[in-house]
């Protein structure tokens, strides 16, 4: 039964695509054909799911998740090569990959930068010129610079954010005083305060204002979610602490911190995403180095393949940072499987 259905879907898929190709309709209604093809693929995959044995279901689901982006990339490649999309604006994935390789191995003499800092040169440079030369390899890297800005901004913002959030969660007076103001500042797009930061810092074009904006955007998100986390602790746990003779310090470490941790972490995840958005936006407008700069610079010189390569790197950075945060989360909260 299922096999017949699979066969029917498959035949429709092949017939449709041949038919459209013969009629030379791809050029005009390619988006519609792609949509129908997608629906057919989904129908096919659903039928396949019914005949996969239970123990392979998990594997099958993972295969679907991995194969989808691969299909998208292949389709992209094909429709660009078929002349349907303009390769100037939408360079095919193979060309983007080549551009990424190009950015990785080559040093930009004009800007004195490279994408990853050419770590393979480190051993030979160390031998000839010592540690300062290795350090300069690091500082020439777009990726490491962006990571450094996000990391420092995040730490400088999140730690005071957690502290203030806990204080606001525990002390009603401070909460009443600050809550409305915090909520008002919270909705302000943090990138909008970048000009103020440039006014405040002695070197408006240095690292100071960039890191400050990342820190401030992380700070408010983390402070507000930490406050919510502390307030969200079931009062019965505080009663248990009291009943079992916990003093203030013990109540703090045994009840308040672990009790608020899950919501603190959801705030940290939000803050991390925002930090990445903010840093890329700042690197667009005012930076000589950083992945945001890579994207924007190559847009300006119409090297779109390198622009996409930069976007790809931003995406990988986002995934990587989220991964690290999740690993910390699992390590700190083993009770949440």
């Amino acid at each position, binding site marked *: 039964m299922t096999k017949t259905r699979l066969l029917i879907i498959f035949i429709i898929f092949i017939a449709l695509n041949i038919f459209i190709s013969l009629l030379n309709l791809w050029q005009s209604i390619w988006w519609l054909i792609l949509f129908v093809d997608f629906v057919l693929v989904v129908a096919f995959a659903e039928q396949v799911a019914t005949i996969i044995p239970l123990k392979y279901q998990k594997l099958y689901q993972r295969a679907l998740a991995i194969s989808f982006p691969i299909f998208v990339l292949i389709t992209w490649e094909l429709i660009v090569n078929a002349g349907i999309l303009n390769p100037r604006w939408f360079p095919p994935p193979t060309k983007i990959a080549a551009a990424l390789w190009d950015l990785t191995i080559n040093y930009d003499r004009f800007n004195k930068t490279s994408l990853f800092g050419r770590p393979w040169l480190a051993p030979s440079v160390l031998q000839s010129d010592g540690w300062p030369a290795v350090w300069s390899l690091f500082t020439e890297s777009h990726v490491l610079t962006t990571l450094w800005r996000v990391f420092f901004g995040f730490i400088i913002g999140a730690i005071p954010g957690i502290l203030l959030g806990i204080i606001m969660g525990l002390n009603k007076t401070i909460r009443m005083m600050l809550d409305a103001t915090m909520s008002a500042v919270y909705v302000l797009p943090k990138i909008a305060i970048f000009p103020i930061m440039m006014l405040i810092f002695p070197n408006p074009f240095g690292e100071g204002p960039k890191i400050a904006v990342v820190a401030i955007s992380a700070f408010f998100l983390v402070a507000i979610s930490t406050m919510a986390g502390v307030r969200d602790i079931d009062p*019965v746990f505080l*009663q*248990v602490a009291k*009943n*079992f003779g916990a003093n203030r310090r013990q109540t703090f470490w045994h009840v308040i911190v672990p009790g608020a941790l899950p919501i603190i972490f959801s705030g940290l995840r939000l803050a991390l995403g925002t930090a990445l958005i903010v840093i890329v936006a700042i690197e667009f407008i005012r930076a000589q180095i950083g992945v945001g700069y890579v994207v924007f610079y190559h847009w300006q010189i119409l090297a779109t393949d390198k622009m996409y390569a930069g976007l790809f790197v931003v995406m990988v950075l986002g995934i990587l940072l989220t991964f690290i945060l999740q690993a910390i989360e699992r390590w700190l909260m083993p*009770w949440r499987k």
Partner: protein
Amino acid sequence: MIKIKAQNISKIYDSANGKITALDDFSLEVEDGEFVCLVGPSGCGKSTFLRILAGLEPATSGSINIARSPNSTKPVNNVVFQEYAIFPWKTVINNVAFGLEMRGIGKKQRQEIAMSWLEKVALSKFANYYPSQLSGGMKQRVSIARALANDPEVLLMDEPLGALDAQTRTVLQAELLRIWEKDRKTVVYITHSIEEAILLGDRVIIMTAQPGRLKETFEIDLARPREIELTATAEFAKLSGIIWQALKDEVKQAYDAQMMDKVD
């Protein structure tokens, strides 16, 4: 020897609709080693009384005195809460050792004490599990073990089995009887269930519907050690019939009051 002496306890709450009297001139004396059950309809203030006994809430008037054994360093009381209230972020053994840890007892010693209590409640295999991996009945056993491991002068239990299904509740009642029999700690036990009160208690105290007052006291002279099978005897049925007679007007009154609230 009198262990708990609560005299003329009143509790008045301020609410949007004026003052609500939860407890009205309620007095209770509990002998050392006695198991006292408080039974009353919903909202009669029995939990409030327990929380006042535990020092979690102040009384509006009246006095509480819990006698300590001579030269004892034991904590005065510990509560077993209805909703388990074991910390989801601590393993089972660390939950049981919580009170000991708060009292500054060294890690090795408190782990040993906690482990011996886990054996008594048949959870030693689950020592390193987190509460989310346990069933409701197992969680409540952890909660009971946590209170007992702390070895308080008196144990206060606030409908500890109220949230469990009937079968699990029966199993835990039997377990409670067995554990209590070993050291006969002074217990104040709050429950909705007359059967549970008779099965466990030396004395059953019926409270009136809101405001909570003492309505009637029943001495339960059933021989100890008791077993679950006791509930099937004629003597037990007779007792529960008598106690129900005392309670039923209060339950009806509480129920009608709830209906009135809904109509309002």
